[in-house]
């Protein structure tokens, strides 16, 4: 319990840090980007909306601490201003309409990469010097060396443009009615294949190598020798004795990997025009839409912190050593 509380406190501090960063950035940056934004879009906005945004982004004369308190209040009551590139939709509305797609894409890719990568790692460590161990790691490290977005471009070109196997843009075919019909789900699935595939390809190597290296250490433990001496089946020793104990670092990487996947998903979404938060973030950047940018950053951060907290709770379930201390 103390462990959980400590972690919770840490995540709150991390979240506070990102809010404060958000608060400070528009106020202390040279070149006054916020004024530039106002100059560009002033004629489209109502006077009171301009006033609200000025307060949010710090173009007002109140003392700093007063602005800070006002900013915090705004964030925790969910007032992140209106989006400028998709005027006059509130930022929260823009984000909530798109975060689902990122969760779908990132979540699918993360789960597939983690499961397959860990299994391959187990196999590679179990048969050191075997086919899996000698061929796959260098290959996967090489693939992992490519920038996310470049692999996405390559996949789009090869499977989308040349072979025409999968759709190359957006999350579902335009004009299709969203709903829980087989047609729609199949269509979403087909649109998901290429973006998810690229994220899986890039991230799978890290999972595999991490698991392989922990497994190698676990394999030299005495209880493995003991299990062998008892004459247990090799498959049982591999999965129930060795892999199970080597899993813990992977669980921790799962939380960390999430931030990585979110970043990868951002770039992948841009390539495939996938309507998630990453694609929106790029639009916000191009449209000098600072309120939306800040809102997206906070949302992504909150999601990553929350996921890490859930992983911590899981960790306590898995590792009794954490509980006893």
């Amino acid at each position, binding site marked *: 319990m103390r462990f959980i509380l400590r972690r919770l406190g*840490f995540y709150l*501090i*991390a979240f506070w*840090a*990102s809010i404060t960063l*958000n608060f400070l*950035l*528009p106020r202390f*940056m*040279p*070149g006054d*980007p916020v004024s530039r934004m106002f100059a560009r879009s002033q004629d489209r906005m109502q006077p009171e909306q301009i006033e609200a945004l000025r307060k949010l982004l710090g173009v007002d004369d109140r003392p700093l601490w007063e602005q800070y308190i006002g900013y915090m209040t705004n964030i925790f009551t969910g007032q992140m201003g209106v989006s400028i590139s998709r005027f006059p939709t509130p930022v929260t509305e823009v984000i909530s309409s798109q975060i689902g797609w990122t969760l779908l894409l990132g979540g699918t890719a993360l789960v597939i990469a983690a499961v397959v990568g860990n299994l391959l790692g187990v196999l590679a460590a179990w*048969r*050191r*010097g*075997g086919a899996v161990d000698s061929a796959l790691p260098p290959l996967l*490290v*090489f693939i992992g*060396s*490519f*920038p996310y*977005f*470049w*692999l996405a*471009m*390559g996949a789009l*070109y090869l499977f989308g*443009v*040349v072979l025409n196997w999968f759709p190359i843009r957006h999350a579902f075919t335009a004009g299709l009615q969203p709903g829980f019909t087989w047609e729609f789900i199949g269509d979403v699935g087909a649109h998901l294949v290429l973006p998810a595939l690229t994220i899986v390809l890039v991230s799978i190597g890290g999972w595999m190598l991490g698991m392989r*290296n922990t497994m*190698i*250490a676990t*394999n*030299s433990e005495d209880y493995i*020798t003991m299990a*062998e001496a008892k004459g247990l089946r*090799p498959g049982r020793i591999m999965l129930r004795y060795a892999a199970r104990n080597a899993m813990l670092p992977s669980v921790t990487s799962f939380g*960390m990997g999430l*931030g*990585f996947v*979110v*970043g*990868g998903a*951002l*770039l992948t979404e*841009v*390539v495939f025009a996938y309507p998630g938060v990453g694609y929106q*973030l*790029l639009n916000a*950047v*191009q449209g000098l839409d*600072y309120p939306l*940018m*800040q809102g997206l*950053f906070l949302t*992504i*951060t909150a999601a*990553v*912190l929350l996921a*890490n907290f859930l992983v911590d709770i899981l960790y306590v379930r898995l590792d009794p050593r954490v509980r006893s201390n």
Partner: protein
Amino acid sequence: MTTAILKQPGTTAAKTPAARKPNRSFVHGILTNKKALTGMAVMFVFIALALLAPVLFPGDPSRITAMASMEPSAEHWLGTTAKGQDVLALTVHGSRSSLFVGLTVGFASTFIGILVGLASAYFGKFIDEALSLVTNVFLLLPGLPLLVILAAFLPPGLGTVILVLVVTGWAGSARVLRSQALSIRSKDFVAAAVVSGERAGRIMFREILPNMASIVMGTLLACVIYGIGAQAGLEFLGLGDASTVSWGNNLFWAGNEGALLTGSWWVFVPSGVCIALVAFALALINYAVDEVTNPRLRKIKTPKDTERSTSK
């Protein structure tokens, strides 16, 4: 006087066997390691190309000509872009900015990582708590979104790119270096140095740091890989310094000019392959450093392993 006498045996006795001997076998191990040699050869080629770019392809590589979107031919080995620029010239010139930013970011973030890690490990207590907290917060904040909002608010330019990449990149190295420094901090020769009254700076940089050289090296390589990849990502999003020729900017323009949809694969393939080759080469060197310094990962078969593989 007494401290001076105490100091001599304390430092020399600890240093000679601990630092010098493994270093020699380390260099030997690296130079006989296939992975390391491959990696270093690739890096050598790229650095040579970057240095020779103005000689090999004189003139401005981004000059717009009338020969647009041509396939690779004898005249343009890698074809031309939609604006008629020679792709090979763009790629070779691009290596300059990409390697420069990558190396600068790598060295800067490793340097910060060393400072934070050593200070954490040496001083401990409150300083360690505070520094670890900051490190962990930076590690946890999702990197690319943070990169994007930092770059969006700062005035565009090469300096911004480097600054932003260092801000988001130092935490990983700080954490790795701290844990290594902590284990060295608890060794006897450090305690001896503390007792003999050496200054904190000297203990951190002359006693602890030389003993974690291989980890520092690994961190540096990882940071350079991060720098090159993240710069490319930032530029691909249009947040880099648009006036320079770099691999990321090449890819940004390839995407913008619709190279994918028109089937001009030769426009986007070279820059991506270069990024991957450099990252792969550095990763190879990194794994080699790991293999040489961590006996468990070496490719020597222990009796146990052979026994298991024969029994199957």
